[in-house]
């Protein structure tokens, strides 16, 4: 089947749209589909992914109101617009400054995960280590509940509450 737009290449993307009870079908080649904004390139660089994801979110005004669009990181001077153009963040503080805008992207890039539960620098204060350890245990707890392994879940729950008590003291 040939692409309906260029009539040259083979259609590899088939789109069925049902709107108001009417069904329309489109058959496009990858190139035309990308051009039409229907398909994403099969091989995208990480930076393209970032700019793409940021750009595919609702407009900045819709999300954060005009004040957030104007928001500038006090540390590196980056704005959301910079991040979108450059595809990378300007400084570590951007994670807090643009947290709302970044959160959907982080979730999407990390399969829904939003909390670190890996290695912690040894120079970090004890309470920070406890926080990361609790995230790790919570994740194991969710996995145990999913597997209906309630014995393990109960043990993990106790471990977490003990750590939190100890960590808070």
């Amino acid at each position, binding site marked *: 089947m040939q692409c309906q737009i260029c009539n040259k290449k083979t259609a590899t993307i088939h789109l069925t749209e049902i709107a108001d009870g009417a069904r329309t079908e489109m058959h496009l080649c990858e190139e035309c589909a990308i051009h039409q904004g229907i398909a994403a390139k*099969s*091989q995208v660089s*990480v*930076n393209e*992914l*970032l700019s793409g994801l940021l750009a595919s979110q609702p407009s900045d005004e819709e999300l954060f109101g005009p004040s957030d669009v104007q928001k500038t990181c006090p*540390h*590196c*001077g*980056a704005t959301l617009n910079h991040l979108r153009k*450059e*595809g*990378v*963040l*300007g*400084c*570590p503080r951007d*994670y*807090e400054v643009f947290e709302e805008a*970044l959160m959907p*992207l*982080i979730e999407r*890039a*990390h*399969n*829904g*995960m*939003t*909390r*670190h*539960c*890996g*290695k*912690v*620098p*040894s*120079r*970090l204060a004890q309470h*920070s280590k406890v*926080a*990361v350890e609790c*995230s*790790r245990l919570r*994740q194991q707890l969710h996995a145990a509940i999913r597997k209906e392994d309630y014995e393990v879940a109960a043990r993990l729950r106790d471990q977490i509450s003990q750590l939190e008590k100890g960590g808070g003291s």
Partner: protein
Amino acid sequence: MKLTDLSGDISEWLSGAGPMSDVVLSSRIRLARNVAGHNFVSRSSSTEKTQVLETLKEVLLSIELGDERFYIGIDQASDLTRNFLVERHLISRHHALAKGPRGAVIARHEFFTGMINEEDHLRMQVLKSGCQLSRCAELINRIDDLVEQKVEYAFSCRYGYLTACPTNVGSGIRISVMLHLPALKMTGHLEKFLNATKDMNLAVRGLFGEGTEAAGDLYQVSNQVTLGISEENLVRDFEAKVIPEIVEYENAARQKLLSDQPEVLDDKISRATALLQNAHLISSQEALFLLSHLRLGIGIHRTLGVTTPAIDRVCALFGDDLHRGNASIVTINRLLMLTLPAHLQLNHGQVLETTQRDALRAKLIRAALSGSS
């Protein structure tokens, strides 16, 4: 330390040692780190970049690694040097092409590289031949601990190690395993394999060439998720599940080729042998394509313990003991690396035109396949 000390031979990470080395060429673990109190590289001034570069360079050269190290200023290096380092996987293409003060600290035996001012201030990697991810993880973790004693990393309890791109945030770990998957391609199962990896949140790309058309049937499989999963779990998952499954899949495809299409297999191996033995001009792409068929034949013999007339002829060329077959795989790995453009030029001592390179490459391959070695 001169680069020609390295360029004459293959890197240790391609030596054919380590588990599952017929299919798994190498294992790599990379960590992305940034120095606290500084902008990320993209928003750093040249002065700030130089400051970070000097600090990290000094740290990486001084930590106890058990191997001699050398530093290369990538911003001052020639194109040939940069390409050579990319071909040996010691720096990324991004690092080679970036701008501004940047460098790399490389261990003499190439198992470790620290790239400074790549996308992040520090990208450290450990590379080993075959499937040796636990060993890589152990080493990189120890090196990371040593660096961390001297440098404060940008870290948050919520997001972990803070990286310039949020796709690396968390552990900042990227596991990459280099695989040779010719039989999956020949039996038409590659597409299925690629779809399965997508479902597992893995990224697959060709090692050379663009897109899914991987030259030499060499692929790199890596994790995409770096947040919300511990380094240990990720490494365990790769080593105990992901990689053995892919290897099994490739070996099943090799079995299938042998049982269903032995004449197709032998035809490919024989044609590849004949072309490589007789060609006087050979491009890098063609060499990779043909060497891949020879590598497949030797792999079948080594792993599955089966041979065919074409495979016998290939092994005999390398004077291999048919019951071990190690020399053959090393020779092929060696040719895969030494016939790459920058390697050819560095070993020849001058920059060469494409045709000159093609002639030199063909000569090198003919000599290796002359049967007198």
